[in-house]
């Protein structure tokens, strides 16, 4: 089966004055459709950089990222953006909803950008609002919703165009424990229903343990860790 995402020999560095700082070094990994992989690591270990490279927000220097069988190495910004729009759904810690758009408009955004008809959008929006438990809230504005509700809207937006890959960056980071659990449950269910792959960045051991695999970024490299080896002393 073609992995939803595969990185091979991915390296990334940036210049700070005269000094070169390596963030990622020879990172190879993959996530299969229907699979959830948790990515853990200390602050500054390169988790966000890896997500940026995978999503095409930053150009690839060394190595390659293959998204649903399509190499991103030789793509320019325009092509990467189009690929991202089709194949990736984002979920952020701070939700990143557009405050001046209603719940429905926020959810519809990826479909609208893809040029789909309003009728198709409406049907899918209604379906997802039900799925995330926000029926009847389509006209509300994001900043009138609770954190948990906002994250549900973000989940609906990430899934509306049925992307191959969901990138979730600390999706429970701004939520209380109970809301966090509910959101993760919902996210796992919906991703699994759609057979999408999910790469989940988290600091929460509880959330990480719920994933199929756990990868740890450390000193620029990546390694797989077993859920039972995660301890309270892990400083991430």
């Amino acid at each position, binding site marked *: 089966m073609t992995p939803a995402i595969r990185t091979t020999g991915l390296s990334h560095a940036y210049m700070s004055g005269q000094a070169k700082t390596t963030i990622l070094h020879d990172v190879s990994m993959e996530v299969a459709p229907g699979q959830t992989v948790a990515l853990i690591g200390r602050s500054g270990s390169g988790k966000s950089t890896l997500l940026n490279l995978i999503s095409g927000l930053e150009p690839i220097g060394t190595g390659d990222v293959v998204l649903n069988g399509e190499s991103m190495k030789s793509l320019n910004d325009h092509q990467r*953006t189009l690929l991202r729009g089709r194949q990736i759904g984002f979920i952020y810690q701070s939700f990143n909803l557009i*405050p001046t758009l209603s719940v429905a408009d926020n959810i519809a955004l990826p479909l609208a950008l893809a040029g789909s008809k309003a009728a198709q959008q409406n049907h899918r929006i209604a379906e997802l609002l039900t799925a995330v438990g926000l029926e009847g809230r389509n006209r509300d504005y994001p900043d009138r919703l609770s954190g948990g509700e906002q994250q549900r809207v973000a989940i609906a937006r990430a899934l509306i165009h049925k992307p191959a890959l969901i990138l979730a960056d600390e999706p429970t980071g701004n939520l209380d424990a109970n809301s966090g659990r509910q959101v993760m449950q919902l996210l796992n269910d919906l991703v699994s229903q759609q057979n999408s792959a999910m790469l989940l960045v988290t600091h929460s051991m509880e959330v990480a343990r719920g994933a199929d695999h756990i990868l740890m970024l450390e000193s620029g490299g990546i390694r797989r860790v077993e859920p039972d080896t995660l301890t309270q002393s892990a400083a991430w």
Partner: protein
Amino acid sequence: MLLRILIKSSWQFYRHHPAQLLLSILGIVLGVGIVTAVLITNNSSQRAFALSTEALYGRTTHQLSGANGLPQSVYVQLKERFTGVPMAPIISGHVAIDENVYSLLGLDPFAEAQFNRLGSGPAATKGTDSLPSADSVPIKTLLQQDALLVSQISAEQHNLPVNDSVTLNVGGEEHNAYLAATYTSANPAATTGLMIGDIAFVQSLLKRDDKIDRIDLILNEQQVEAIRGELPETLQLTPATSRTQTMQAMTRGFHINLTAMSLLALVVGAFLIHNTMTFAVVQRRELFAIKRITGITSKTLLYSILLEAVIISTIGSLIGIAVGYALSGALVQLTTRTINDLYFVLHVQQIWFSPWLILGGLVLGIGSSVLAASVAAFDAASTSPVQTRQRSLIEERTRSTLPIMAIGGFIIMIVGIALSLLPVQSLLVGFAALMLIILGYGLLIPWMVYALSRLLKPWLDKLGVSVSLAAGGIYRNISRTGLAIAALSIAVSATFGVDVMIGSFRSTVDQWLRTTLQSDVYITSPAASSTQNARLLATDSLSLAIDTVGVKSVSSGRSIDARTSVGNIDMLVIQPHEQSSLGFDLITSDSKDPWLQWRQDQTLMVSEPLATKHAVAAGDTIEVFTETRGFLPFEIAAVFRDYGSSHGKILMDRQVFDQHWNEPGISSLGVLLDNTDDDQSVIAALSARLSSSERPLVIQSNTAIHAQSLVVFDRTFEVTRVLRWLTVGVAFVGIFSALLALHLERAREFAILRASGATRRRIMGVVMTQTALMGLMAGALALPLGWLMSEILIKVINVRSFGWSMQSMMPIGAIPETLFMATLSAILAGLYPAYRLSRSAIAAQLRDD
């Protein structure tokens, strides 16, 4: 202490947002700059006029004059009768050397001792061996053959050959004069462009025969009474200041108009300041929320924001004053030319800058900025820390305020319109009405933008996702877009309104010229300046013209400066030919045949500006100072349309004039041809018969005069056009800063769009479509206001400023031009923000706080 910390915090914010700080300052700089430039310009020309008058009058307290000058013998008789009373005969006129026009003052050096004309100290001369005289005018220098003195500043400026002869152009004739010396006065700026000569020489140059213009006197109250008691009714003794006041009153409307145009720039500038200050506040709303949470009271927060506005506006105002000073150089040139075209010869050498102007600029700049910032400051201070973070709440609150603003705006507009309809002549009330209408409409605009963009949304949605997002962005961010569109709309409406006004005016003047120029060919003597009456023609010129082959009939005219009960007025005396009456469009008259009535004794017609300004009408009488019997009442037979003079004109029949003046001369001829196709050969024939080297003439066809008049007309409005473009410039900076701030505030939204698959091109497309839509809306909403402004300008301001009434006319293409200009301005202003947004780092924008 706390305030100091808050200000330091603001400073840190602006350090990281230097562009925003610059734009805030730029708005104030431009607004204050334009107002200051106009204030300096007005001040400079008024001061130049006042100073030159003061310098020329010296210690003169009174002036004695007749209906059209006075015989030289009067001076001799007066001198004998009132021995010991300081008096001096004066003749003044204009001469030209090359292209430069100079005022020429003829005076009697022996009579000048006590007048001290050129300043408080003794004037000094250079280039002669004469010592600085104890008198103001050095006697020895002026007594040389054909000698003239010229102000040193003018000699240097125009490279005049001192101690050498020069060729003077006096009404088209060439005369030699000896430039004996230069003089300096206590205030050189007051005597720029002034030449002085002995009265006898000047009399011969200006062909005044045995006449002088006036007698200047230094009198105490008893002497005034004594002289008045003995004067015949044909002579008048007036205080020296009265003439100055009359001339200053002439240009009052012109100066007020300029000031009003500049204030419009300040109003647009205030919108700009409001925009930038609002954004600066809005961007920090979370910071303000943290400050409120940490215990800072809303009052302290309010003071800190207002103090910030004071600091920024003080910097902006000071730079604005400097910019205004620099700009005033060019404006002074434009306004001086207009004053010379329309009113009187004026030399403005010096830019007058006073501490009051600095104070005025600071008050205007700081006042308008604090006022503009206060809305945002009150909003930030009164919002609870929790609400401050809710963006949608701001929009919701704005949306709920829109109808209230609209109703308020509508009421203000109605008050403005009602004020404009009041039957008063006050120009200031007219401008107050105009400003209220602008303000009221400005408050209506955000509501109209919201309604319009919601109304159009379903149709715009069909044009694709970029257009849909762009259109939605306008009403969803109405708290930001509404003001930006209002600022641009007001500036564009001013352009449209002024365009319609100038277009209507030009079209009216064009039509009026076609009507008024009934003769085919006009003959006059050349004049040194357009505001000076032409010199007299030869006595036989009328008969010679009538006898010329191809000439059907001839009318004659004579222009004099008549003293009347309503001030000094240009009086045109005509002996009409059969078509002359067709050249006057009579607006009101009191009889069935006004032309027949006009031919009766002590009857005249007045122009519309005179009737409007002095509230006289057909059937009323005005007193005119005649040469033979002093002041006499004349009945107004009719009021005629006239755009040639804003201070009014009197039309008198030649036979009536001859009964009361001993002035047989004529200064112009209007020739009606047998065949108009042959006008060039008749002009050549007339030129051959009437012209000579001693009496050069200007013989022009009516089409040439028509064209020349329109050139002067266009030149008159150049300064208005400059101010109008400066206002558009302010609005452009306004919309630029508004769009930049708006889009920077929405940078995260655009990053979300980018992350969701929107390409850079699409982001550019969304932003540019949005700015274009905003521009188009601003243009469309500017049209009704522009039309209303033009109506007020035409029906109220012009009538009250100049006394001219005219028909409104929409110039072809004004509407599409306005829409295009507004859209283009917005697109240009949106280019940089769009580029910046499309290039911004998505990951950084999306980073969690």
